[in-house]
């Protein structure tokens, strides 16, 4: 997981400027570079795997269509995640119901043994379900800080809210997870890790 996240880390990934001029090759490079972070973000915010490919495509369609609105004064990742967040909100609004957790998730990495892999997959499913049940404002901040490794200031700029509000939301999100995942944290195997 850590390895994968490092490979798809969004830090310092500013795209080639040619994509804004409609260069197809530059745009394709941008899509390849950002598809996994966007998918990961949508996965955690929307909470479903099934429409992820469609949602990702919608994000990049909007990126291409609105490329003239991108200002280089801000970070590209902030602009991209704002679009992704709008797409995620649209998807949630369409469904008009709470997001649910993961269905069939392709494991990113196999564990040392089938039992351990199975246990980790089940634990991951429960954690993802718990994250998906957080209120959207808390969930978005948690995902951006933990999975996308954005600083609170970046998140604050992206969501156009004060950094203190973002920090409060993050604290609340982590506290809620701590309360709901207490049974996993108190697992004796956790202390051995």
């Amino acid at each position, binding site marked *: *997981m*850590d390895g*994968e*996240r490092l490979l798809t880390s969004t830090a310092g990934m500013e795209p080639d400027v040619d994509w804004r001029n409609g260069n*197809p090759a530059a745009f*394709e490079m941008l*899509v390849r570079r950002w*598809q*996994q972070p966007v*998918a*990961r973000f949508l*996965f*955690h915010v929307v909470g479903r*795997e099934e429409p*992820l*490919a469609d949602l*990702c*495509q919608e994000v*990049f*369609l909007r990126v*291409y*269509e609105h490329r003239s609105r991108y200002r280089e004064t801000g970070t590209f990742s902030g602009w991209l995640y704002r679009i992704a967040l709008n797409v995620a909100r649209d998807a949630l609004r369409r469904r008009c119901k709470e997001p649910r957790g*993961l269905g069939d*998730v*392709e*494991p*990113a990495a196999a564990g040392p043994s089938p039992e351990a892999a199975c246990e*980790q*997959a089940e*634990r*991951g499913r429960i*954690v*993802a379900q718990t*994250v998906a049940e957080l209120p959207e404002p808390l969930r978005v901040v948690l995902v951006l*800080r*933990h*999975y996308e490794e954005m600083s*609170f200031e970046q998140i604050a700029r992206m969501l156009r809210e004060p950094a203190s509000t973002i*920090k409060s939301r*993050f*604290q609340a999100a*982590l*506290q809620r*997870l*701590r309360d709901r*995942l*207490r049974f*996993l*944290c108190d697992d004796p195997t*956790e202390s051995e*890790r």
Partner: protein
Amino acid sequence: MKCTDVRAALPLLIYGEPSPEDTALREHLASCPACRREHEALTGVRRLLDDVSLPRIAVDLPQLHRSLAERQLRRARRWRRIAAAMGAVAAMLLLAIGLRLEVRLEASQLVVRWGEPPPVGRAFQPDVVVPKSQAGEPDLLDDLRVLSDLIHALKQDADERDQLCAERLNRLEKHVRALQSQGDLRWSATEESVAALYLLSRKGEKP
């Protein structure tokens, strides 16, 4: 520091968010087992978040390009429709202004007028007065029926007169022919008489 303040600040500490109270927090954690357990629990939550398996998504680039092309086409079509609608509205407005069109809703009628307005102070008087009773009313039907009978009677009378005239003409024609034949006979008798007299007169000169 109080335990409540420390626990509120723990999420930021775990994620390495710098704070001027970091040193005080760490000193408190070293001396407070309850807050230390909370710190460990939150650290455990952070580890758990990494246990989530992520789906592998690859955007279908050809499909993406197709969708972009379709959207651009749709947008162009929408703009064309909007431009056509605007053009139609502008044309109607120009027509209305050019014709000085006036649409007015009165008590029980919709008035549509164009061109110059009627002179002020003179009420509009129609040139042709249409009688109130129109076709389909009983008195008019009776009038029409009487008129029809009258026309038929006149026709019959004219036919009879025509027939009488024709008979009279026939009779006159026969009479003229008879007179003509009598005249012919008399002419031939006169010619014979003249011829006889001529012969007699010649015989009288010869002796």
